[in-house]
Structures are given as C-alpha cells and as structure tokens.
C-alpha cells in the first residue's frame, strides 16, 4: 500500500464513468459483473483478516498487514454502484415494484451497505494496525457489515432480476464465495511473497492453500445444497431459474467450467502437500477460482440483461487496476508504528 493507490482508485472510477457514458445503454448490466467481482474480492480480503483476528489465528501474521492495508479500495464501490444505478431499468420489477423492490430504496440501501463496509473496514484496520484495544469488536462489526452487504448483492443485485424466484441460500452462498475470493487474493499475495522470500512465507502459503482446499469443499457443499433441493422439489417456478441456465449453450458449458474452477481443480490439486508449497501452483489455482467467479456471474446475469463483450474486459481491467496495484505490485509495507 502506498500513496498511489487512492488516486489510482479515483482515476479508474472516473474512467469507468466515462466509459459508461460513452458506450451508453448498450453496456447493459456489464458494470454489475465487474463491480461484484472486485468488490467481493476486496471485502473478502478484509473479512479473512478479520476472521483470523477473531479466531486468534497465528498463521496469517506474516501477510496480515499487507492484506489489511487494501481497505481504502472498498471506497470505490459505492461510487461505482451509483454509476450503475443509471442502469436500473434492466430490472424487470422497475415498473411494477413492491415495497422492497422500489428504485430509490434499492439504490439507497445498497450504496449505504457498501459505504458501511468501507467505513467498518477503515476503523477495524486502523485499530488493528495500531494494536489498540477494541480491534476485535470492530472485526465483529466489519464481518456483520460484510455479511449484510454480500446478502444484498445476492438478493438485490442478482436474485431480483428473476422476481419472484427465491433461493434462501443465495446470500450465504455469496458471502462464502467472497471469502473464498479473499483467500485466493491472499494466496496470490503469498505466492508472490514466497517467490521472493521462501523461508519467511512458505508455511503461511501452505496454510492459505489448505484454506483454499477447505473452501473448495465448503463451496461445493453450498452449491449442492441448492441444486439438490431445487432438483428434488421439482417446483416449476423454482426449477425455471436453473433450467434456463443449464438447458442452453454456452451457459451450460460455463456452468460446468465454474464447477471445475471452484471445486474439482482446487480440491484435486490442493490434496497434495507439494502443490500447497509451490507458489506457481497455488497462484494458478487462485487465479482460476477468480476466473470462475467472473464466469459464474455471467452465468447468473446473461439470461437477465445484456453484457457488453468489449466493455466487460475493459471495466474488469479498469476496476481491477488499483486492486492489483495494491495487492501485488506494491512492495514494501509501511506499517504505522
């Protein structure tokens, strides 16, 4: 983390705004995908640190400060969401809304939750780095904000496209994925660090890799719990959502890919101890999971609204730039004394 991160973030937000204005309505809900991915990743990073803080985990120590110092990135997302709110008209409920699905309320509560997360992260990180008391309380606070924000992402950003379809596990599924992303980002940072200083970081890398392994299993469990229930219940209104995404190409292929990216490959690879210790392998798996996340978002959203094939990579890159900078490029960590 250094002084460039914040300006970079500001610039990329402005560029995104420019892009959206330039490309106009044709961008559809592209921004939603880019936003959701990077927001979940950043929130997940801090969430991982917070969870480690609460469970008094020692393993994360070597990398902790670098992870924590990504917190200012979280401020990008409320801004980006406000930009996206110009595209609400892609939501089917916009004309005949309900008490909950009401445009103004929708924008306010989602922006607020993103701000809340950023603020909670800010205080939690400051306290923790300063080693001041009450850091744990703030960690709890952050995690609560994180859960609320991710649940809203699931239920508002994505699920409401298919109103009145409901899936109660959607929220938990989202924040587990966000946490998973956070672990991936940490693993990437560790892979890079281990590359430079094997002795100092390898044990930590191994632990992060084990977490990847564990979460691949947990993720599979969550997915299975949803699919099994819907498949078994066989209620048309409920099955429709899955059916639409499994019956047609290329969505079907995407679904299979995400299954491999999130579960089979991480699980299969991370079984072996050697793989857990090798920075390139862990890094590759982490990247794969991130890719899986993006594609899964496409799986969710493609049937609901237009995603611009050119704008999507651009926006992913633009929003990603400061994040990559803060996590991977920046070298020295200046921990405030």
């Amino acid at each position: 983390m250094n002084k460039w991160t914040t300006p970079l973030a500001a610039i990329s937000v402005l560029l995104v705004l420019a892009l959206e204005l330039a490309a106009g309505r044709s961008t559809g809900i592209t921004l939603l995908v880019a936003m959701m991915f990077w927001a979940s990743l950043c929130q997940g990073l801090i969430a991982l640190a917070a969870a480690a803080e609460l469970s008094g985990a020692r393993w994360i120590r070597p990398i902790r400060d670098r992870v924590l110092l990504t917190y200012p990135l979280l401020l990008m997302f409320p801004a980006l969401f406000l930009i996206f709110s110009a595209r609400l008209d892609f939501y089917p409920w916009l004309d005949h809304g309900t008490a909950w699905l009401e445009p103004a309320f929708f924008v306010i509560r989602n922006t607020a939750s993103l701000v809340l997360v950023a603020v909670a992260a800010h205080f939690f990180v400051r306290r923790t780095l300063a080693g001041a008391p009450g850091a744990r309380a703030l960690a709890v606070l952050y995690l609560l904000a994180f859960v609320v924000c991710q649940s809203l992402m699931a239920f508002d950003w994505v699920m409401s496209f298919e109103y009145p379809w409901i899936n109660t596990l959607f929220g938990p599924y989202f924040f587990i994925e966000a946490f998973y992303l956070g672990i991936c980002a940490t693993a990437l940072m560790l892979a890079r660090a281990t590359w430079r200083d094997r002795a100092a970081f390898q044990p930590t890398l191994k632990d992060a890799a084990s977490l990847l392994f564990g979460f691949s299993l947990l993720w599979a469990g969550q997915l299975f719990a949803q699919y099994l229930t819907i498949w078994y219940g066989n209620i048309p209104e409920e099955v429709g959502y899955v059916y639409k995404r499994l019956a047609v190409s290329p969505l079907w292929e995407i679904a299979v890919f995400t299954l491999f990216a999130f579960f089979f490959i991480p699980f299969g690879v991370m079984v072996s101890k050697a793989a857990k210790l090798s920075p390139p392998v862990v890094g590759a798996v982490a990247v794969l999971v991130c890719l899986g996340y993006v594609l899964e978002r496409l799986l969710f959203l493609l049937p609901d609204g237009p995603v611009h094939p050119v704008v999507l990579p651009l926006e992913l890159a633009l929003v990603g730039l400061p994040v990559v900078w803060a996590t991977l490029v920046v070298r020295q960590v200046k921990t405030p004394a």
Partner: protein
Amino acid sequence: MLKSARRPLVLAGGAATGQPGGLAVALLAGLLQWTLGAVGDAVDFASAYSFDRLGTCADLARLGQRLRAKEIGVLFISRIHSLAGQPGVAPAIDAAAFPVGLTDFLTPVYQRCRIILPVPHALEAWGDAEPRRGLLSLIRPVFRPFHDTRPELDILSTLAGGQAAAKSFLFDRWRPLPGGWWQNGFHQTRPAGVTPALRPAETLAAWQSASPAAQPAPLWLVVAPSLRTYDGRSRAIPLLHEIPDPLSTVSYGPFVSVSPETARRRGLSANDLLRSGNGANRLELPLHLQAGLPPDVWQIPVDALGDLELPIDARTGEAAAVMAGLTWESTGLHRKLPVLSGSTDATGRGITPGHRKEAHHHHERHTLLPPLEHKHYRWALAIDLDRCNGCSACVAACYLENNIAITGPAEHLHGRELSWLRIQPYFNRDEPPVLLPMLCQQCGYAPCETVCPVYATYHNEEGLNVQVYNRCVGTRYCNNNCPYKARRFNWFDYDRPAPLNLLFNPEVSRRPKGVMEKCTFCIQRIRAAKDLAKDQARLVRDGEVTPACAQTCPAGAITFGNLLDPGSRVSALAHSGRAYRVLEELGTEPAVYYLSKRVK
C-alpha cells in the same frame, strides 16, 4: 334474469315453501311455470313421485289425537324410523292399548311398542315398489334371511286369516301384467300426460289471499333435511355418521349452525353448547360456525330436532321448515364437534376454479427430470364441479368398495378419519361456494413416491401412484410430502364386529396398523378389466372400467378413462376449456382434472 335464461325453470320447495308464506310461494311458482310454458315440458307431473298414496303431517297429528282419545286399540307401526318434528305422535303411541312394531331395526319409535315383530331386510324378502308413477318394480331377495324373521306381507296376510305366502301373493298381483317383467324385474307404463288445467285468475286470487303480512322476526330457525339421514331414518347406519355433512364437514353428532358474523355479534364461539325451547321442547346442541349462511339464520338438520315440535300449516297439512322467534342461549358448556375441514377459505391458493393458476409464468413447464412416459394407459379422472352437488354418495361407495375402516367420533376429533375421497367445501371471498371432491391425484411427478425409503409406493407404467401395503413400514413421509394430503394412515388395527364384516369386499385387502393407504382409482377393477382385455388380446376399452365413485355418482359428474386414448371421454374432457388441475403450479402433473364453467 328469467328473461335472459334460454330455458328458464322455476322450482319451489324446501325452506321456500316450508315457511308461513310457503303456500304463496308455491302458487307463485306454479304461475311462473305456467306462464313460462314449462309445464308438461320441463315440469312433468305425469311421472312425478306418487305422493297421492301418502298422508300429510296433519294426518299424523290427527292420528295422535285419536290415540290420545283412546279411539285406537291395536296399533301397527311399520316403516317409520323417525317422527322428528311430528307434533306429539310419538308420545301418543303409549296411549294405544297394544302398539305392535314391524321393523328390521330398533329406533326410539319402536321402543314404545308392546311387542316387536322382526321383519327381514329389504334384500332378504320379496316385495315390490312404485318409485314413480308408471314404474312398477319387483324386489327379489338376494340372499336367505340371516335371522328368523317374517316379511310384513306374511305377517299381515296371516293376521288377515290367509296363509303366509308373500311370494305367491305378489305373483298373483303381477301375473296379469303384460310379460317381460320376469326378465327385467320391472313393468313400465307411460302414464297419460297429466297437464293440470291451471286457472290463472283463481290462482292469482289465491296467491294474493295466501301471501301473509311480512312479519319481521329477530332470527329464523331453518330445519333442513339431513343429507345423510334425511329425516333421521338412516341414523342407525354407522357409515353415514362417519361421512361428514358436506357443507359443515361435521361428521358425528347433531349441531346447530349460524354464520360466523352472527356468532361474533352474539359473542358465541364454535362448540358452545346452546339451549333452545323449554320444558319437553328443550333442545341442546353444540354450535357450528357455517360460512355462507345469511345473518341471523339458525340452521339445524331435521334429525337433530328431537322432541321439538314444528308448527303445521293448516292449508297444506305440512310441517313448517322455518320457524321464527326461537331464541338460543348459551349454557356456558362446550361440546367439541368433529369438524373435518381445517378452513373453508382457499382464496388465491390455486385450488378452486376461480383461483386456478397457470402451471408456470412462461408457457413451457420447466423440470430437470426426464419426461413422463406411460405404456398403453394413463388412467385419469375428470370431475365436473358444475354437476357435483356434494351428495357424498361417492364417498360412501369408496368406503364400501375399498374396505376403508370406520374410526368413530373419538378418532374424528383427533383428525383421524380414513376416507380416501372427501368433499371439500370452499366459501372463498370472491367466488360462489365450491364443493371439491378430493382424492389421490395420481401425480406424474408424485412428491410422495420419491421419499418412501422402501418403495412401498411407486409409479406404475399406467401412471397410477400405487401403494404396496405389505411393503409399507409406516414412516408417514409420503403423506407429509403430499400437497393434497390425500393419503391415510392406519393408526390402529380397526376391526368390524359381525355382521358388519360381511361388508368386506373380497377384491381389496384389509390394511393392518402402521400402514399408509390411499385411493388407486379402484385398481382391483382396472385389473379385472385388463384381464378380460388380455384374454381377448386387446386393450381396455373406454368405459370398461368404472371406479366405485364414478359408478355411484347420481349426477354423473365423475368420468374415468385412459388419457392416452384420444377417443376416450376423459381425454376429451381433460382437454376441454373447462378443465384445470388443483395446485397446478406445483408441477406435480396430477391425473385428476376438475371441470368448471368458471375456468377459461
């Protein structure tokens, strides 16, 4: 309204004519029928029931007076099972010097007799009847009498000094009739068309004189004949208590009903024990809240009357079915009624025709499961809700055909009746009342089947949702997961004391305790038909199989058949615009189609 109708029909009767102004109503109805030209066309006096050989309540009342005046020594009573509401006749019997009862089962009336001469059941003896004018039918016994009994005819002819020979006596009277009756058992003559000459002017005058001054009464008591026991004559048949009254869904015990609003206004609640009348005419009944009743109307089935006397209209000689000014006060006690329906409001639930739902927002039906396939047959049922009047004959038929256990009042209070087929009444907020016969829907994607751990229920290749009683271990999961709750569980071993065990249908196995059971479209009948078809190397023809319920339905509301046969009546009905399926949006693909004009 009459103008708009294509072939208007005006009918009067029941409560309409049973009230003080009843005669006026009857006359007005006659006038209307006459003016609409319905007489002789829709209204056929020729083949009406021959009431001309019957007395009126007034006659009975007169008999009572004569008895009390000791004008009668020996009194023979036969074929009277209830004197509910008949003014003071029953008590008067005691005044007779020597009342003799001829009956096949004991009712309160016969308990007053000095001696009882047991007569055989109608199925045990020769006899004849004239159900309606011009139709004479000969009744022949179907089995030898179980007990040492004598037919009425024997008894009477012996007393008359002749010899006991009911059969010969009958045949002497039937022999002169033109032949043919010994083959088909009945003799029919088309009676001369009776078109009574109606004199409008006089009728009108009579009507004006008859119509009484409208008297406002605080509340009315309507005495309706009970659907199950009529005037109480069938009270001794246990099955008729097991089957609930279709509107109130009360099975055991008499009750008085009033609309929920009225009850609320009067601070009464369900199962309150109410008292009415006084002295000998005292009546104590638990309260049932009946949706659909107009305010301030109390309604009791006639068989609940007990000794309460009904006033008699001198001009018609008939007992009034409507009484004014009868008050009910709470006794502060409660008597829980077995009300089998949890609620009668299904608004918006996709159950009644007015609220049926599309299977899916989009037109194609989504499923992740393979499509349903059936070989040769997909048995299905079509129930015409516009024809069904809730008479519950189908329910009775189902009980008898399938050896369904009778569990009794105590179990009914626990919600443990075992009927496979039931009449569900609905009084939705925005829809006229619906009577919905509910039975196992033989779903294609049946939720019950998949959850059974031991394959005790599975989908056979004819689309039936079969139940293997021997295999069932009684997890009850299937019924939990049935959206229609159409399955029944044997909580205990239920046995039928002799001679009721004679009622068992040998084609259907009895179920022991701990086993789930359900409707399978009378699979035993389907099997029989298929065996026949197999012998003749063909498929079962349409109409060859008829489940007990369809066979019994007097309105012909139930149609059974093979959905895969495009020529079958059921597939025609299922594909008609009137058809819908209950809870269709659950995607269970039921094989029971409900028909209603309200659907389209």
